[in-house]
């Protein structure tokens, strides 16, 4: 996982649900590229391609609500998106993103300040986001949870743990 993520943001509103992120009919797929091809297609043809020109998604409250489908996090990675910043997340999306190694940050103040196309700089280790000359702090995850994200996901974390045990 990158310690610092810098890039242009696309901005969504509140309650973006996981059916909109990736419709149920594509849940037979699990690979990032395939899911990325269909991500957000409910919002219009070619909308996913529009998102590919951005690096970071910013959203309002309750991003990823609805279905617990892990493919929602995977599909966003399939678009080449490197992080999601939201005012808040639905809990299943939050957990899935960590377990898939997709960096996510809760920072309502940044969400209120940022506009589509702006550049931001997320410093995960320091717990702050830089935007337009200002810094926005965000609360750190518990160490045990942050370790999963840093290793690139739960699969890597558990593989490492089993290897340690021998």
């Amino acid at each position, binding site marked *: 996982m990158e310690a610092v993520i810098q890039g242009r943001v696309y901005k969504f509103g*509140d*309650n973006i*649900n996981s*059916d*909109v992120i990736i*419709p*149920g*009919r594509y*849940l*037979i797929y*699990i690979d990032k590229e395939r899911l990325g091809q269909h991500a957000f297609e*409910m*919002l219009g043809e070619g909308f996913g391609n529009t998102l590919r020109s951005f690096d970071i998604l910013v959203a309002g*409250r*309750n991003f990823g*609500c*609805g*279905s*617990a*489908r*892990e493919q929602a*996090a995977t599909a966003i990675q399939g678009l080449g998106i490197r992080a999601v910043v939201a005012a*808040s997340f*639905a*809990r*299943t999306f939050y*957990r*899935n993103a960590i*377990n*898939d190694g997709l960096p996510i940050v809760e920072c309502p103040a940044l969400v209120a300040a940022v506009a589509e196309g702006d550049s931001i700089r997320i410093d995960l280790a320091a717990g702050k986001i830089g935007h337009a000359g200002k810094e926005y702090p965000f609360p750190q995850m*518990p160490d*045990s*949870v942050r370790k999963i994200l840093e290793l690139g*996901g*739960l*699969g890597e974390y*558990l*593989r490492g743990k*089993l290897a340690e045990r021998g």
Partner: protein
Amino acid sequence: MGMTLAEKILARASGRDRVTPDEVVVARVDLAMSHENADLVRKSFLEIGLNQVWDPTRIAIIFDHRVPAESEKTATTHKAVREFVAAQGIPNFYDVGRGGICHQVLPENGHVRPGMLVVGTDSHTTTHGAFGAFSTGIGATEMAGVWTEGALWFKVPSTIRIEVKGSFHQWITAKDLILYIIGMLGAAGADYRAVEFDGPAIRAMSIASRMVLTNLAMEMGAKVAFTPVDEVLLDYLRPLTPQKIHRIAPDPDAHYERTIHIDVARDLPEPQIACPHSVDNVRPLSALGEVPIDQAVLGSCTNGRLEDLEVAARVVAGRVVCDRARLLVIPASQRVYLEALRLGYLETLVAAGAIINPPGCGPCVGLHQGILAARETCVSSTNRNFLGRMGSKDSRVYLASPAVVAASAIAGRLAHPASIVHEEEPCLTEG
């Protein structure tokens, strides 16, 4: 200070005397449920590098989202899971024709009891809080972790208490109550939180009705939801399990983030409808004007149980589905299907022009068995009306109670059951 139900169960499962909200604990899992996405879990599990799951008796797998297989790809997935189940010796496996919807099959077979910690790779796993379990949805990779270690991290949620009193008006049900609550609190109103439903109106409800509340609590973001562990529940569970059933209750001095009071006689004079395209876009039926419908869906983990089929049969008995509409009925399980057959509900529904789909999720997830075309409108007893959920991104889904779904199928427009059963209105025709 005392503990809420969620705190008590997480304390027990993490080996602590007590826990408090916002702590992160590692808790032992009592039951780990998956549906077709068990194939995804299986792949992640094998990638981790172990050959044997932590405890096959604590894993349950139920096919429901794609039954029977709608494509060769799904058939291959089903086959791979069957082979994995056999190789691992997982006893609680419910194949096509043996079970139904996971959230109906688990309790029907006595797998869920008060005080348990249950996780499932499905967001509506909150349903099992109607059986006094701390029960919540997780992702597939996370489930692979549970299959490996039998444990998972949880942030202890704070709890919202919802006290409900009063008698329901005729035709008003648990579905109307929970839609009303979601409309009030919003889609993020219970994010990360536990919800305890209690009060005389809840204690008077059947278990099937309580499951509607705990199921749909997820749609306001709840991590877990509970209804009381009382005599009604114990009477339901005793014939299903030889295991000892623990009576658990929140402490009288437990701390609640907030308490909400509802009087259903006062607050729910008429059916509640969740309008497109979000579950918290809730309006009373009379506020909607004329809404013609093309499809009516009765089923799902929310409202596909015997009492739901019974009320629908009562509404359509001796009538026929309007020419412009189609009525799809999906019993929640094989057991519900058989019982509804024996009691004649299905005969009544078929005679009215309903088509019966096999037990499972049906069209709710937008995969098969009743997909909507562009510019079609559906009234459904299911749990989500998101943009494109049941088919075309240009279709519209209204969520309602089974009684309203049945009445609307007869009228060809959103309709109050009282308008159908008492004074018949003319069927709405095209154009």
